[in-house]
C-alpha cells in the first residue's frame, strides 16, 4: 500500500462528496456530501502522517477536523430544521430569499 493509493481513495471520496453537494437538492444530502469532503481531507491528513515526516501532527489535525465536523453537523442540522419550519421543504433550491 502506498501513499498514492490513499490519496487516490481520498480524491475519489472528495469527488464523490463534491458531486453529492452539487447534485443533491435535499438539504441532508448536501450535508452528507460535506461529510464526505471532510472525511477525504481527514484521510489525506492521516495518510500524510503515516508516509511522510509530518508525524503525529497529521493525526492530531485529523482529530480537530472530526471535532469540527461534529460541531458543523449539529449547526447544519439545526439550520435544516429551521429551513423546514420556514419553507415546509428541505429543497435548497427553493431557498433564494436573500437574492430578492
Amino acid at each position, binding site marked *: 500500500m502506498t501513499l498514492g493509493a490513499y490519496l487516490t481513495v481520498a480524491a475519489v471520496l472528495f469527488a464523490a462528496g463534491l458531486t453529492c453537494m*452539487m447534485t443533491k437538492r435535499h438539504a441532508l444530502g448536501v450535508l452528507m456530501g460535506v461529510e464526505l469532503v471532510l472525511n477525504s481531507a481527514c484521510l489525506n491528513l492521516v495518510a500524510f502522517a503515516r508516509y511522510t515526516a509530518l508525524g503525529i501532527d497529521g493525526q492530531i489535525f485529523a482529530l480537530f477536523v472530526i471535532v469540527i465536523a461534529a460541531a458543523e453537523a449539529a449547526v447544519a442540522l439545526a439550520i435544516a430544521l429551521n429551513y423546514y419550519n420556514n419553507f415546509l421543504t428541505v429543497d435548497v433550491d427553493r*431557498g433564494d430569499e436573500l437574492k430578492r
Partner: protein
Amino acid sequence: MTADSLIIACLTTAWLLPLFGTVAISLLRLRASRLSGLPGVVGVGCVTAAWGLACLAGIVWLATGSSEVGHEVLEQRRLVGDWYTLASFGALKFPLGYAIDSLTIVMFALVTLISTAVHLYSLVYLADERTECYLDHHLHGPKGEPVERPGRFGHFYAALGLFTFAMLGIVLAHGLLQIFVFWELVGFSSYLLIGFYQERWAARQASFKAFLMNRVGDVGFVLGMTILLATCGTLLLFPSHGAPALPETFAAAVDAAQSVPADDFSGTHGMSGPASYTLLVAAGLGLLAGCVGKSAQFPLHTWLVDAMEGPTPVSALVHSATMVAAGVYLAARVVPVLLPEALLVLAYVGITTLLLGASMALVARDLKQVLAHSTISQLGMMLLGIGVGAWEAALFHLVTHAFFKSLLFLGAGSVIYAVHHEQDLDRLGGLRPRLPLTAFTMLIGVLALSGLAVPYVTIFGESLGFSGFHSKDAIVSGTMAFVLKNPQHLLLLVAVILGACLTAAYSLRLWLRLFASETPAHLSMLKIHEGPWPITLPLVVLAVLAAFSALGGEGGWLSSLVQQSAGLMPGFGSGTAGRTFVVQWADPEARHAIHGTAGAITLTAAWLGALIAWAVYGQRIISAADLSRQFGAITHLATARWYFDRLYRMFLVQPVLVLAGHVGRMDKWILDPLIDAGAAFSVRVSAWSRWCDEGIIDKLVDGFGRGVWSSGLSLRKAQTGHIRQYVLLAAAAVVVLFLLLFAWMPGGK
C-alpha cells in the same frame, strides 16, 4: 393759589389745549367717519377754552398789577421760570420754560381769539370737506370732470390746532432755542395748511416755496443763535433764578468789544478774548434774517402771496394775523441784542417792503392777493417801527393789524363763499346790496387798515378813527422823531408817508371794486346771500375789535398794556460809553411832542390816497386804464411783482434745477449703466458657473453614481441564490486554480 401761579397755570393750559385737540382729532380720525363734524366741534371747543383761559389770565394780571396806566415807563412785571432742563453742559444750560409779561398776555388773548374765530368760521367754510368724495372743481380729469378725493375736514382741524399750539409756544417761550423749536413747528404747520389742497399743483408749489424760503431765513436765525451762544454764553431772553440772560451778557460783550477795532473780522482773540463789534452786529442781523423770512419781508417776501393757495380761513389766521406776525414779535423780543446798525438795516428792509407790498397791492387782480400784499406791507411798517425805536408802536400796530387783517380775510372768505369761489376782482362787483353785513364789516376793516379818521373832531375825548389810525400814527410819529434826530435818514419818513397814502388807496380800491361797482353779468344770475352765523359772527366780533380795540390811542388800555413790557427799549447802547453809534435814539417825550404834526401829515396822505381811489373806482372821474398808462413803468413792474419771482427763478431756482438735471442725467447715463453693467457681468459669471456645476461636476458625480449602480446591477446577476451552483462554481474555481498552478509552476521534483 397766588395770582402769579394762577396766571401761569392758565396760560400753560391754554397753550396745551390746542395740542390736545389735535391729538384727539387725530385719534378720532381712526374711528369716526369723514362725514362727522366732531373734529370741528373738538377743535372749536379746545381753542375757545384756550381763549377763555387767556382772558382769565389777562383779567387776573390786570386786577393784581400795581401798574398805573400812563406814559411813564412802568415797573417791569414778569413771571419767568423753568419747567425742565433739556440739557446742561457745565455752566451752559438749555432749559424749557416760560416768560410771561403783559406782551405775552396780549399775544395769547389775540392768537386764541383769532384762532377761535377762524375755527368757528371754518365749520361752515370747509363743511363741504365732510364727505367721502370731495369734488375739486379747480382740477380736471382727462375728460374735464372734477377730480374726486376723500374730504379732509379732520385733517384741517388737526393742522389748525397744531398751528395754534406752536404759535402760543413761541409767545410763551423764554429762550431763543425754545422759540426756535416752535418757530419751526409753526413753519411746518403752515406748510401743511398752505398745501391743504395738495392735489393742486399751485398749492403744492406754494407750500414748498413757503417752507424753503423760511429755511433761508432760519439759516440766519441759527447762525445768529450760534454767535450769541459763543459770545454771550446763554440763549435766555429773560433772567430766571439768577441765571444771566442775553440783555446783560450782551451788553457786557458790547462793552468788551469796544476795545477791539471795528474792522476786525476775526471774531474772538483766542478763546477768551472779547468778540468783535462786527460779530455782534452779525448776530443781530442773523436773528433778523429769521424774522424777515417768517414775516415775508424783502427780499424773502415772495412766498406769502403764493401762500394764498391755502383755504381762506388759513390765510386769515396764519398768513395775516399770527404766524407772519411772529417775525415781528421775535424782532421785538430780541431788541436788546440788536445793535443800532442792525436796527437801521431792519428799518430800511421795513420801508422797502412797505412800498413794494403797497405797490403790488394796488395792481393785484386777485382778491386775496391784494390782502396778502397789504399784509407784507403792513408788516414792513411794524419792522420799521422797531428799527426806529418805536417798539411799543410796532407791537401796538401788530395787535390792531391782526384784528383788521383777519377781519378783512374772513370778509374776503365770506365773499368767496357767497360767489362760489370766484376771487378775480374783474369778475366781482356790486355785492353791497346782497352781502350787506360783509360789506359793512369789511368797510370797517378797510378804514382801519387805511388809517382814515375824521380830523379835528372828538367825541368824549376820542378822535373819530379806528384802531389802525392810532397804531399807524404811533409808528409815523416814532419815525418822525427818529428822522428829526438823524436827518440823514429822511427817506424813512418820506417812505412811510407815501406808504400811508398807497395803503389808503389800495384798501379803498379793494372795497369799492368788490361792493360798489356795477354787478358783472355772470354774478346777477347767481343767488348770493350771507353765510350762516359761524361766518358772520366772527366778522362782527372782529369788526368791533378792529374799530374800538385802540380806544384812547397811545394812552389807551391796549397800548399801555403793551408798553408795560417795554423795558427792553433800544438805546441801551447809551450805557456803553466811549462809542458813538451811527444813529441817535429819540426819547418818548420827543415822540409825543411831534405826535400831532405826524398825525396830521399821515392823515392828509391817507385822505389823499382815499380820494384818488374814490375818484378812480367810486366816481370814475379818472379812468383806471388812463392812470395805469400814465404810470406805465411802475404799473408794469408792480404787476410783475417787481420781477422778484422771476429773478429768483432765473438766478436761484433755475441753476439748481439745471444742476439737478445734470446730476440726474449723470446718474442715469453714467452711474446707472455702470451698475447695470456690473449686475449684467455678475449674471453672466453666475450663468457660466451654473453651467460648470451642471455640465461638469454634476455630470461627474451622476456618472460615477450611475456606474456604481449599473455595475451593482450586473454583479447582482451572479448572485443566483442557488447553493449548489455556488458549490459548483467554487469547485470549478478550485480546478481552474490548480490547473493554473500546475501550468506555471516551475518544474516539479
